């Protein structure tokens, strides 16, 4: 290391460059070690080697500050020092020094967190206490959000496709409407039934929903014919699930969706068919004959119960040949009307004639 025109005692040694400082270590005297803070360097340049001269790097320094640590020169008269590279390494060193100077890493502030930064994958600093917990929750939430959005990416693709499908079917349906004469009634109905069975709502259906579509009406008529016999067999009442199974088994190929069935059943009354769709308080839906009178049923239920003293819904079902669900509904209805009362115990639910 030279200082201008001053042959330093510092002759042979090793220069080390860190992110914050320039350190010079004497080769002979290992205890001698000088550090120069990089922030002190204003500017540096290189001087090429010449004959008899070695390559040098000249480092211009800031004027010395008051709190400068003790070093070989407490105060230099001269504003720069020269590093002489007698062996080699000057180019590399120059490059590195340039890098460090541009990065100026000594200028980044030390993080204010209490504990030391862990090298976690996310690179977040760990904090203790409530702040830490909050941060963890936030982090978790972000992760979940990301997972969900990733998972649904496929779905959004599907939705885009479905939208196209709906548009297509809508346009075709409109064309059918316009060209009404060109396509036969049959085909129209069939096409619409395909659309409905695919679950794509037909705009024609929506518009005419108040009076019901042709499709549902036809269906209702068909059901009316078909269900009369089974209903008689079962004492005039069938749960909608049973109807669904029967109907689809009979149709074989073109099955009905539950929605279609319900919509068709709702039209029984308006089409003056001898069937009715009925919904109980508990939500159970049944199809029953119009001629089926509820009072009669309840009166007969009361008789049955009085005969046997008391009945559970299973026993009642067996007695009448009804399904357990329907028999329970009937008993509950009788209770609501005050003819029966209940006995709820570990043995099960029994119904007694209301003697109160």
């Amino acid at each position, binding site marked *: 290391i030279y200082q201008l025109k001053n042959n330093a005692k510092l002759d042979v040694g090793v220069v080390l460059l860190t992110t914050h400082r320039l350190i010079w270590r004497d080769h002979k005297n290992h205890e001698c070690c000088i550090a120069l803070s990089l922030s002190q360097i204003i500017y540096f340049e290189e001087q090429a080697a010449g004959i008899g001269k070695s390559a040098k790097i000249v480092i211009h320094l800031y004027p010395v500050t008051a709190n400068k640590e003790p070093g070989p020169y407490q105060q230099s008269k001269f504003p720069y020092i020269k590093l002489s590279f007698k062996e080699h390494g000057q180019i590399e060193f120059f490059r590195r020094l340039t890098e460090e100077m541009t990065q100026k890493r000594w200028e980044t502030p030390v993080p204010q967190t209490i504990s030391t930064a862990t090298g976690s994958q996310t690179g977040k600093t760990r904090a203790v206490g409530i702040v830490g917990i909050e941060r963890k929750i936030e982090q978790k939430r972000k992760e979940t959000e990301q997972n969900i959005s990733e998972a649904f990416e496929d779905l959004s693709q599907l939705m885009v496709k479905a939208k196209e499908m709906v548009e297509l079917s809508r346009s075709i349906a409109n064309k059918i409407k316009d060209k009404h004469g060109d396509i036969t009634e049959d085909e129209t109905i069939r096409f619409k039934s395909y659309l409905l069975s695919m679950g794509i709502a037909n705009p024609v259906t929506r518009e005419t929903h108040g009076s019901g579509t042709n499709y549902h009406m036809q269906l209702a008529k068909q059901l009316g014919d078909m269900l009369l016999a089974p209903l008689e067999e079962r004492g005039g009442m069938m749960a909608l699930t049973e109807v669904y199974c029967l109907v689809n088994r009979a149709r074989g190929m073109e099955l009905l969706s539950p929605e279609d069935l319900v919509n068709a059943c709702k039209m029984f009354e308006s089409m003056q068919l001898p069937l009715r769709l009925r919904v109980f308080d508990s939500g159970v839906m049944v199809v029953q004959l119009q001629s089926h009178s509820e009072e009669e049923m309840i009166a007969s239920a009361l008789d049955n119960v009085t005969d046997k003293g008391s009945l559970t819904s299973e026993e009642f079902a067996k007695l009448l040949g009804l399904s357990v669900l329907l028999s329970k509904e009937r008993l509950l209805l009788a*209770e609501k009307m*005050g003819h029966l009362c*209940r006995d709820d*115990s570990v043995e099960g639910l029994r119904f007694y004639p209301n003697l109160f």
Partner: protein
Amino acid sequence: MSFEWPWQYNFPPFFTLQPNVDTRQKQLAAWCSLALAYCRHHKLYTLDVMESQESPVFNNKKIERKLSTEAIQVVFEELRKKGNLDWLDKNKSRCLVMWRRPEEWGKLIYQWVSKVGMINSVFTLYELSNGDDTEGEEFHGLEEWILLRSFKGVKFF
């Protein structure tokens, strides 16, 4: 004289709180009168909710039916509304049963006092409830707190 159980006591549905409103009214009325009659018969003045679950009133071992805790609470609430029951503590675990309301007691005592011509004389509470003179009267053995309450309604000097 043993206690006579009403017909409902052996009717299993009696022990299930009926959902049908009309039926429930009748059921609760029957329970109230049963509870009061039982207390009157055995001269019980306080009831503990936990104990009463096991007592023969709410628990019929013969038909293996008993009232659930919720149902017992409903019955007690019904009694309270009628004025026959008072809760001793906030948690509703102990209650005072007045199978005769305090006003009725007051009237009875007054009648007895006038019968024996002792109006305008001084009585101690103890005399009234445990004195030899009152033996055979219904209010003999009446506990102090209910005597006190009965006097609230009636004017005594």
